[in-house]
């Protein structure tokens, strides 16, 4: 169950900026309707829509001006070697799909065996490359999730039952207790020598 203690959201409250504008729009629409008192339904609807659009404009201005003064918008985008993880993931999926399509085409007689070997070989190399790139710190994505899960469970004082221990090849930093790879010379979290 999600609650604010274990939530990893960076903002402390759940109130967002755009809520403010929606609220303003609703209030504004009410005020406008009371003042103008339109007689037809269509006119009323459009008045509300117009005021709503007005509040959207307000949000747009906010969104355009605020980044110049605040760093909140430089979102932490996870990058892997210059490209986003999202982009790499996608490309991997696409390459895998391409391999499958090629296999299907061969079965349908649209690709000769030689061509299949050549084209398929290239695709497989690319896929392997991508798989390697996506592994962060020598750990697979699965390992990353497991580690985070361990941390979170530790935070709320639960013992991880039935979850594998991190592989023994790790070394633990004496200063901060973070697990590091076996060939690391400095702790990746506090920088102390290992």
């Amino acid at each position, binding site marked *: 169950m999600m609650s604010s203690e274990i939530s990893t959201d960076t903002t402390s409250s759940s109130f967002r900026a755009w809520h403010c504008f929606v609220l303003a729009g609703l209030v504004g629409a009410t005020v406008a309707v009371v003042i103008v008192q*339109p007689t037809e339904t*269509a*006119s009323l609807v*459009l*008045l509300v*829509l*117009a005021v*709503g*659009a007005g509040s*959207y*404009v307000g*949000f*747009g*201005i*906010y*969104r*355009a*001006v*605020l*980044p*110049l003064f605040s760093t909140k*918008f*430089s979102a932490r*985008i996870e990058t892997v070697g210059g490209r*986003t*993880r*999202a*982009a790499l*993931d*996608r490309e991997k*999926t*696409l390459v*895998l*799909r*391409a*391999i*499958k*399509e090629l296999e*299907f*085409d061969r*079965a*349908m*007689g*649209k*690709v*000769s065996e030689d*061509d299949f070997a050549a*084209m398929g*070989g*290239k695709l*497989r*190399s*690319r*896929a*392997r490359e991508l*798989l*390697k790139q996506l592994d962060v710190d020598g750990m697979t*994505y*699965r390992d990353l*999730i497991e580690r985070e899960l361990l941390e979170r469970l530790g935070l709320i004082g639960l013992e991880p039952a039935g979850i594998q221990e991190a592989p023994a090849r790790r070394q633990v930093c004496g200063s901060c207790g973070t697990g590091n790879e076996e060939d690391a010379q400095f702790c990746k979290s506090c920088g102390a020598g290992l």
Partner: protein
Amino acid sequence: MATLGTYTLVAAFIACAYAAAAAVAGHRRRSTRLLESGIGAFYLVTALMTFASAIIVRAFVTGDYSIRYVDRYSDAVQPLFYKVTSYWGGLDGSIMFWVFLLSVFGAIAVKTNRERHRELIPYVIATVSVVQLFFLMIMIVSKNPFATYLIDTPVDGRGLNPLLQNPYMVIHPPSLYTGMVAMTIPFAFAMAALITGHLDDSWLRAVRRWTMFSWFFLSLGLTLGMIWAYEELGWGGWWGWDPVENAGALPWFPMTAFLHSVMVQERRNMLRVWNISLVIIAFVLTLFATAMTRTGIVQSVHSFGEDPQLALMFGIFISLTLIVSFGYVIYRLPLLRARNELESWVSREAAFLVNNWILLFSAFFILFATMFPTLSEAVTGQRITVGPPFFNKWMVPIGLMLLLLTGIGPLLAWRKSTIANLRQQFLWPTTCAVLTATVLYGLGFHVWVSGMCFALCAFVVGTISQEFVRGAVVRRGVTGSDLLTAMIGLVTRSRRRYGGYVIHVGIVLIMLGFAGSGYKQTAQVLLNPGEQVEVGRFVVRHDRLSITDDGAKEMHTAHLTVFKDGQEAGQLFPGRWYYRKHETEPTTEVALRRRLSEDLYVVLAAYDMADQSASFQVTVNPLVNWIWFGFAMLTFGTGIALLPESRFAFLASKSPPESVGATSGVSTTILILAVMSGLSNPIYAQQGVNVESYTATTGLEAELQNELVCVCGDCPHYTLAACRCALAPQWITTSDGRQEIARAGSEFMRGQLREQIELGRSRREILDYFIESYGSQEPLGAPLDEGFNRFAWLFPYLVGVGCLIGVGVVAVRWSRRDLATVGGASSSLEVVDAELDARLDDELRNLD
């Protein structure tokens, strides 16, 4: 209200300019703040355009006639529905609608691609903003929809033209606009890829979906236009080769070509320059289309009017776009070089190349033929007409070729097909085609074009059914399920491919509909009450005329009883409606009896209330409903193809839906073979006066009635067989003292033709007679093949042959090039990690 609207537009202009500047500056200076601010400004433009739209629609609904645009296109009694949709009824509003749509699409595109294509986003924003700036500038400088009357505010508006007060008017423009505007997004991504140099396949992934979306809505818009013309305008056809119709169809060709040739880039890394060029051309053609409609540079019934200032602005913008975009293409040519070469002409790559060439040629041809009258008038000072007869001659064979390609494409193998391969793939479809042709011939259907079309349809159906069945068999072998499950799994797994095949089936049905028009039967006849006429299997009896009124319009209706094969089969009520405040422009209400096998189409051409007699145009259109049904199939196929790929639970980070662009069908022939009928029958009768219909007496007269066109200036050059206007001839004296007719109605022209026929004149003599009486070649449906006009006939041939030679040269050069070492992993040096390989196989298995 109006000033608020104007300021909103100005604010949008400023925000656009800022967005472009901030995005580019932010990117170059690596300043996230500036970039984010630019993105925010981009969203702000969307908000502002929404606000402006809300204002104008509110003005329509509340009847604020101080705004000129509202006054022009609305009035108090207009139904609410049409008040709201008058937003895009006129020129100014339609430009604002364009910017509104563009801002919405731009915002969506940026939002969904922020993560995936970070490096491209700044220039995507810049490009879309520049296009928006252009249209905003047009509005602010000259076509402001919020312009007001300074004095004399009207109390009631003039009302929307009754011809536009029908449901089609409501969905046809937005659909068409969506189709055209959405094409800006792929163009923006293409420009971003060119500018940043990231010319790998990532920009393709971003845009395939958008192009498919745009293509679909353009097809929808065009089909709706066809249905509208067929049902409402009453001239009996669905495509008149009117310049604005052609303009709308132009972007469709490069879009279709692109959707096909991306597959070649993905599979074999070829045709990369083609692909980027196709996107640019498609976008430029959308600009051109909108320019043609708005500036009146070609004479058309659809155009909003003449506007040289607007023509200049558009001209400059289009030229700049072409120069900048193709300039970048040339600059980036080294990066765009193909990594593979064409090895055989009997391969799928070659088929796609030919497909590209044919589609592009069609677009070019239509563009050229549409612009030719303007060109000719500018050069020779003579007015000519390029009408359906000219287009017919060219587009029919092209359409048939494309249909053939639709069938052949899926059968060819990648890289090269062997003879055994060919035999195995082609056997079944060819059998279908030959069988169909033989059977039809045997049954007595001898219209050769239609027959060929039917045979080709059978060929394509054979190909598609073969693909489905064989694919299901393969899948059954892999998954071990039964055939039906396998077939369903096949479609859901390869949505793009099989969605594409479904689209092709839709095309075949549409072609079927076109082929049917080769067997069209028509009669124009004057009937008294009780008299009847026989057309095909139908007998239509005229009973009486009536007049009714519903407050908004007065309706003059004829009551007809229909008999099919001797049995009574219902009643039909063709009529003419006279709307309040538009009494001089009555609408024609067509009476239609729709069946899958044929349509019975009756129009009330002219009538005399006093003695209850009336002239009718009765037509039997075989198979026409297959066109609409085919389009529905096309929609279904597009839906399949556009479905997002399902995610894989293990990959927790969002793997957004793959840009699943379908192998979109070659629907070219929707437009092209529309003219197979060539017998367009517009009904443009006079009110209440019977006209002599001059039904053709000799073969030559019938032929010429279908070639000569009406020059009344009110109809879009309908042929004499079709047009029913009775404008009296207006004589003028030329500078050298001769008498010439400046304008005349088709009634008068048919009389002239009858005279000439009775005098026993030959074809050439009759044509010369018309040229002399009208002082130019305008009454001819197609320019004579001599002098400057020879250019019209020759130029497309020249370009076509030139391209063929060009393609041949390139292909030969390609095949002689040394096998390029493809960039990427060289398998010899790579140590294949067994664990990695196992993981790869694992993931492949999980893919389904």
